[in-house]
């Protein structure tokens, strides 16, 4: 899953690059990371400090997706993402000389529509940033902040808001379980080599709030998932993209899965089965089968928007279907697919699917 964000960041940065001449060498997440801190196993996490930014590492993100329904049972999805990208290693400079750039993405999805927005900011002057304590992440008017004496281990409660030209939302996120360290105690491998990231999640959010599309507000409730990840070189040069899933099972269990596609046709697969009380259990690559079963054409691209997922060790065999097969984040030159899904079969529930590199 780490790679998913990573790649998104890469893609975003690339698009950003086209807009602002960010050289591809800095945008490409699979390029070398000289001068930046490297991700090594055995790091001790500490909260709330690790809610904040880690400027020694090249990229980092705060990523929240939510599966929501209104009073009539109609399904929605929402996305809130803040990326940090360091242009140059070294201690952070003051003011405009600060060498970090921020990017925000927000989206809402319904079966019949998908709206998204993107924004960019320099760090150092207050237009965007993240404070660990009290927790506050922001870019322009988009906001995520701890409220009501937030519990750092639960990262809750949170107030989350974003808006675009024709949509906006404001959600309150509560959680009754602590955050979960992914991979090996937060060390998440991204390839068979040393590509890796630090990665933790809060998959237990309950969301409630208001979503407005075309000036029509609707009250919604549902489940949300936060990913926090940072690294300096999370992708190997031969890795081209990934398919990533975050699933809320009806049983209260959570499942995170990804496969990183390699140019040699092989995939690097990883999964994490999280029990309803928050105990993670790594799933080895051989124990995961991810099979695309149908594709959707978006422009000239073909994306697998329905998947068959099998994890024999947990007796899982499910079919995943996108709520809206056209959940396309058409951000200039760094487009990707990200949207809510439903699944049924041995298990049922909702979740989010992200596909990049298509």
């Amino acid at each position, binding site marked *: 899953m780490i790679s998913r964000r990573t790649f998104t960041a890469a893609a975003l940065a690339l698009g950003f690059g086209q*807009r602002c*001449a960010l050289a591809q060498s800095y945008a490409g997440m699979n390029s070398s990371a000289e001068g930046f801190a490297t991700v090594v196993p055995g790091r001790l996490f500490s909260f709330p400090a690790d809610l904040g930014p880690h400027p020694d590492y090249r990229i980092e993100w705060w990523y929240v997706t939510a599966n929501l329904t209104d009073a009539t049972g109609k399904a929605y999805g929402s996305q809130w993402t803040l990326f940090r990208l360091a242009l140059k290693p070294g201690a952070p400079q003051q003011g405009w000389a600060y060498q970090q750039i921020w990017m925000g993405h927000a989206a809402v999805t319904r079966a019949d529509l998908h709206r998204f927005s993107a924004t*960019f900011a*320099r760090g150092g002057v207050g237009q965007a940033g993240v404070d660990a304590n009290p927790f506050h992440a922001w870019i322009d*008017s988009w906001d995520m902040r701890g409220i009501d004496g937030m519990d750092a281990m639960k990262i809750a409660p949170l107030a989350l808001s974003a808006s675009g*030209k024709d949509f906006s939302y404001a959600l309150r996120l509560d959680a009754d379980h602590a955050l979960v360290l992914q991979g090996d105690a937060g060390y998440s491998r991204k390839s068979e080599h040393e590509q890796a990231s630090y990665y933790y999640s809060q998959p237990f959010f309950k969301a409630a709030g208001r979503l407005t599309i075309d000036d029509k507000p609707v009250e919604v409730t549902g489940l949300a998932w936060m990913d926090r990840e940072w690294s300096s070189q999370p992708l190997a040069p031969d890795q081209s993209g990934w398919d990533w899933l975050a699933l809320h099972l009806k049983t209260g269990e959570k499942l995170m899965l990804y496969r990183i596609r390699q140019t040699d046709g092989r995939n690097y697969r990883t999964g994490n089965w999280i029990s309803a009380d928050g105990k993670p259990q790594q799933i080895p690559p051989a124990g995961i089968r991810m099979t695309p079963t149908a594709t959707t054409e978006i422009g000239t691209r073909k994306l697998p928007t329905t998947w068959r997922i099998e994890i024999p060790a947990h007796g899982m065999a499910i079919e995943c279907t996108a709520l809206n097969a056209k959940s396309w984040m058409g951000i200039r030159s760094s487009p990707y697919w990200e949207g809510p899904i439903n699944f049924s079969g041995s298990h049922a529930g909702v979740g989010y699917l992200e596909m990049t590199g298509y």
Partner: protein
Amino acid sequence: MTGVGWILTVLLSHWRRHPMQLATLLIGLISATALWSGVQALNQQARTSYDRAAATFGGARVPMLVARRGTSLPQQIFVDLRRAGWPVSPMLEGRLQIGGRSYRLLGIEPITLPVEVGAAAAIGKTDLQSFIIPPGQTLVAPETLSELDLPEGATPEASDGTRLPPLRKVPQMAPGVLVVDIGIAQNLLHRPNEISRLLVGKAKGPQARLESVAGDRLRLVPADSETDLERLTDSFHLNLTAFGLLSFFVGLFIVNSAVGLAFEQRLPMLRTLRACGVSARKLNVMLVLELVTLALLAGLIGLVFGYLIAAALLPDVAASLRGLYGAEIPGELTLKPQWWFAGLAISVIGALVAATASLLKAMRLSVLAIAQPQAWKQAQRRWLLLQAAGAAAVFAAAALLFWFGASLLSGFAVLAALLLGAALILPAMLEMVLSLGQRSTRQALATWFWADSRQQLSGLSVALRALFLALAVNVGVGTMVETFSHTFASWLDGRLAADVYINAADNTQADDIKAWLRLRPEVQAILPNARAETQLDGAPIEIVGLADHSTYRDHWALLQSVANAWARLRPGEAGFVSEQLARRLNLKLGDRIELPAPGGIWTLEVVGIYADYGNPKGEVTVNIAALLRHFPAIPQTRMGLRVAPAQIPALMTALQTRYGLNGRNLVDQATLKADLMGIFNRTFAVTAALNAFTLGVAGIALLTSLLTLANSRLPQLAPLWAIGITRRHLASIELLKTMSVALITTLLALPLGLCVAWCLIAIVNVKAFGWRLPFAVFPLQLMELVAVAMLAALAAALVPAIKLARMQPASLIKIFADER
């Protein structure tokens, strides 16, 4: 050979027998296309540079938020607005002295910069990281790089000792502007956490009310569809275009007469072709085809000439635009493919329009019709009446436009209507003069002279009209330019009252120089002055601070002023405004203006209005001490000196050696005056050149008309020869006739030209530049023009006259043999 081939051969054989006619046709088309495309190329070149300038100025194309009071804003307001949903991008602007020259420094924030600004593309090609992270980069136009005489990557030093980031050449940038990251600009200008304005991008979502974020500190300036430069220079381009059009029409007159004659002469041939069984349709298609081919050929040649004309005029156009509007136009001509297509198209369309009448005639040609001599007099009478009625209508339209129009465009429309009406009424007026002449004579030959002149009118009228219009415009523009040049010269005399001008590198050096000068006995007065830039009513203006000294009181002429105006400046609560500014904001004596200054609003009472020719910006003049109180940060490096004339060279040499001042920052009055006059002479050099071209084309039109008429007039002349008038005598009568018609035309053109001049001075100049000149007539110049026109007419009439004088008697006898 196919039928089509035969028809073509027959048609083209005409041109082989009449090469002069072919030449005339081609010359007409070539000159029309050349002048038109030349002017278009100049306009295109200038517009491209404005786009370039706009790309870096980033001003007018997007809405802006500016300070309601003062000249800068705290940076925090940018963050606050972004946090409230406003898609704003900060910009800091200031001036930086490098090597004694002042540059405009623009600090931008490339990441939030709205895409619509256009600079994003220019920045986009550079590496974002190296642009924003110190040391950063200084983006400059290639012209600026060569002006600084530095290679890419050099780090020039500003006058205060700070070093600029490495220079980087960006071809799309405007000359004279340095673009750096906003953070770097804040350091270079010593304005930490300050911004000049905020550019507003397209809304991406709901945004809070402006007042709820920034109180009443900000004012929203809406976007302009045009840039400042485009708006400012519109008049100049309209001017050029008007001349291009005029020349084009004069060229078409030539084509019209050549095509008309060729068709007339080919009528028997066409009839024969029709009689041989060629369908009317086929014949017409062939005629059009022939014309289009000729037009394309001429168009290509015309484009080459157009390019040459544009290339020759470009330096003057560039100088004019720089002098008048501060617009930087690169000196190298670049043309788009559209220009070539447009040029060819205009040639073909022009040829077809000019030939419409002839083509229609050929189309309706009846196989059996024979050449019937028309009852010309009756036809001509009706024709004259019709045109006079048309002229009356056009004059009425001009009067209406004059009363109700307010824009520059309506000014030009008045001019166009005036010229069109005059052109229409010209034959009627000539007819009137000629019939007066005819009535006043008894002698047979003289009566014939006048009557024949009248009969010739319809044939010559097109060429005469060309001459008439060209002359009128020449008189008009000539008078305007002369008026301007006189007014400007006497205005400069008053304005440049000091004898030596110094602009020191910095305040310390200025203080040193002043201290040193005070000890020099030949220096009668040191007059420090200073300039500040601010905005008034959304447009940039300059505030000039002058010392309180008799030099200014005695020399600086005020167009309007209250009593004791100069003394009123002293307390710092009153100022003079330039004529342009007064006109734009409709300011009168006693009105109050509010100038944003760093410390807050500075309210001034208008106590005087002065002429400020050639300044694109509005200007306010105040007492220097008051200016420095309100703008404490401006450099105090400028000063003027009153020096005994004999001592000037020695003093300047001393200043040069002692302080290393050069021609840029040390100049005497005479040199400065010459420079300024040079700029303003060049301003109208283009107008003068186009004027000359137009007159030349009109001369050609007259020549070709006479040449084509010469042949058709033989039936009229042969009987006179037969009754005993010698060829030589006939030729001199012909020459005299042409000259007298030309003279009458020229004399009629003079009053029209003065009307044109008045329109230019009282309507066009005021709208275009914001100043009104006193109207004056220059008789010498008018006489010169009459002489030039007569020379042109003589040159044109001489060839056919000589031909007639040397004509073989056999040719004349043949007239009686032909049935025609």
